[in-house]
C-alpha cells in the first residue's frame, strides 16, 4: 500500500520543535513594539520616520547583499528587520534621515554580510551601526529632543548627561524629587534615544522574551546585577534605580547583549559576558568620555566572546575535570 508513496529517508530525529529562527526574530520585534510606540508618543513624528528609514535601509541592504553574493534571499527571516528596528531604537529621535539610512547600511553590509551573513557576524549589527554613527556624527548623535527644561530656560539633555556634565544638583533642579525622577525614567518621559527611555515597557518586552524561551536569564540577570552592585558602591541607594532605568541599560541587557550570534554559547560564558558588560558599562558611565556606555560595553564584550567561549567550555558528562 505504501508502494506509490515516497518515503523520505533522513537521519534521526524525525520530529522538531516548532520554534524556528524566523519566529524568534519576529517575536523579538513584537516585544519591542511597546517601547517603540512609547518613543514615538514621547518624541513625535520624526521618531517614527527614523524607525521607518532604518528598517527600510536595513531590508534594502540585506536584499542587495544577498543579490550580490548570489545567496538565497533572506529578507523574510526577520533578522534584517530586527536589526533595523534595534538600530533605530538606540538613535536620537531627531537624527537626520540620511544618517539613519547610512547606519542601517553599515549595520547590515559591514558588520553582517562582510562576515557571511546571518549567524557569522562577530559584532551586534545594530550596536555597531550606532557606534559607527556616533564616531561619524558625534554632534548629531548627542543632540537630544528636550522634554525637561531648567527653571532658567536652558535645555536639558539626557539624565545621564546631566549627571555627568553638570552634577547631581542640576539633575535635581530639573526633577524636583527622586520619586519624580524615577517615575519619569520608568515611563520614559526623559531625553534619550527613541526606544531606550521607557524602562517599564522594555522590561515587559524582556519578560516576554524570557517566557517565550527566546533568551535565557543568564545575560540580563548577570548584566543588571553587576550594574546594580557597582552603582550602589559609587552612587549609594540613589544610584541603583537611577543607573538601572536611565540610558540604554534595559534595552541593552534584554535585547542587545542577548543577541545569540554575538554572545557566548554556553551558560557559564553568558554569565561572564553579562558581568563584563556590566563592569564596562559602569566604567564608561563613571570615568569615560561618554555619558552612556551600554553600546560600547556590549561591543567590547562581543569582541572577546570567542575568547570567553574558549575558556568556558561545558563539562562533558562522564569526564572528570
Amino acid at each position: 500500500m505504501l508502494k506509490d508513496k515516497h518515503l523520505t529517508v533522513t537521519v534521526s530525529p524525525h520530529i522538531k520543535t516548532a520554534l524556528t529562527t524566523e519566529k524568534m526574530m519576529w517575536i523579538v520585534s513584537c516585544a519591542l513594539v511597546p517601547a517603540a510606540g512609547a518613543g514615538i508618543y514621547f518624541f513625535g513624528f520624526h521618531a517614527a520616520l527614523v524607525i521607518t528609514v532604518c528598517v527600510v535601509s536595513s531590508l534594502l541592504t540585506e536584499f542587495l547583499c544577498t543579490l550580490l553574493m548570489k545567496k538565497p534571499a533572506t529578507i523574510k527571516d526577520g533578522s534584517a528587520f530586527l536589526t533595523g528596528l534595534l538600530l533605530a531604537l538606540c538613535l536620537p529621535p531627531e537624527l537626520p534621515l540620511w544618517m539613519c539610512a547610512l547606519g542601517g547600511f553599515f549595520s547590515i553590509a559591514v558588520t553582517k554580510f562582510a562576515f557571511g551573513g546571518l549567524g557569522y557576524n562577530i559584532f551586534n549589527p545594530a550596536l555597531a551601526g550606532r557606534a559607527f554613527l556616533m564616531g561619524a556624527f558625534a554632534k548629531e548623535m548627542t543632540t537630544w529632543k528636550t522634554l525637561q527644561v531648567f527653571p532658567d530656560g536652558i535645555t536639558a539633555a539626557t539624565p545621564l548627561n546631566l549627571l555627568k556634565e553638570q552634577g547631581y544638583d542640576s539633575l535635581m533642579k530639573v526633577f524636583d524629587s527622586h520619586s519624580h525622577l524615577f517615575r519619569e525614567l520608568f515611563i520614559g518621559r526623559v531625553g534619550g534615544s527613541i526606544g531606550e527611555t521607557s524602562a517599564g515597557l522594555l522590561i515587559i518586552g524582556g519578560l516576554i522574551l524570557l517566557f517565550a524561551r527566546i533568551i535565557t536569564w543568564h545575560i540580563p540577570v548577570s548584566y543588571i546585577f553587576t550594574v546594580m552592585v557597582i552603582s550602589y558602591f559609587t552612587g549609594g541607594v540613589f544610584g541603583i534605580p537611577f543607573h538601572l532605568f536611565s540610558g540604554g541599560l534595559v534595552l541593552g541587557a534584554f535585547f542587545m547583549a542577548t543577541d545569540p550570534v554575538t554572545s557566548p554559547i554556553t551558560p557559564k560564558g553568558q554569565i561572564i559576558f553579562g558581568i563584563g558588560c556590566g563592569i564596562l558599562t559602569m566604567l564608561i558611565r563613571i570615568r569615560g568620555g561618554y555619558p552612556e556606555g551600554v553600546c560600547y560595553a556590549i561591543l567590547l564584550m562581543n569582541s572577546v566572546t570567542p575568547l570567553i567561549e574558549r575558556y568556558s567550555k561545558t563539562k562533558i558528562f562522564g569526564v572528570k575535570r
Partner: protein
Amino acid sequence: MTLGQIIALFMGSVFVQNFIFSRFLGLCPYVGVSKDTPSAMGMGFAVVFVMTTASAVTWILYRYILIPFDLTYLKIVAFILVIASFVQFVEMFLKKTFPALHRSLGIYLPLITTNCAVLGVAFLNITQFESESYGFAKSTLQGFFAGIGFMLAMLIMSGIREKLEYAEIPESMKGLAIVFVTAGLISIAFLGFSGFKL
C-alpha cells in the same frame, strides 16, 4: 609617582591609545601571527617582554649617552641597533637558560626586531618623558603596558579569526580584508574608552 599616574598610564596604553587600534603600530606581526590563540599568546608574551626591556634600555641609552654627547640625531640608528642586538642577546640567553621558554617564544623573537611597536614605544617614551621626573620608571611602565595592550589586541583578534574559520565569508573578503574590517570594528568598540579620565 602615584598610583593614579600608573593607572592612567595603564588605561592610556592598553585601552585609550591601544598600539594596534589607535596608533597603528605593529600591524605586520598583528595580522601575521593572529591566526590562532596559542601563537598569539606566545607572540604577545614575547612582545610584552621585549617592549618592557627595550623601553628601559633605550631610555637609559638616550638619557645617559645620546644627550650628554649631543648625539640625539643618531637616535634612529642607535635605537634600531640596540634593539636588534638586544633581541639577539635575549634569544641566545633564553636558548641557554630556559630552553622550554625558548621553544615556545623563540620563533617569534626574530620577528620582533622589525616590529615597529617596539621602536615606536622607544620613540614615544623619549618624546613624552624626556624632561619628566621618574622618566625611567614611566618609560618602562609604558613599554610594559603597551605590550599588554598589544597582547590583548592579539588575543581578541586570534579568537575572532579562529571563529571566522567556520564562517562563510565572501570570496573577495577572505584573507586580510576581513581581518582589517574586523580590526576596524574592534577599534570602533575601543572608541568607547576615548576621553577616559580618572
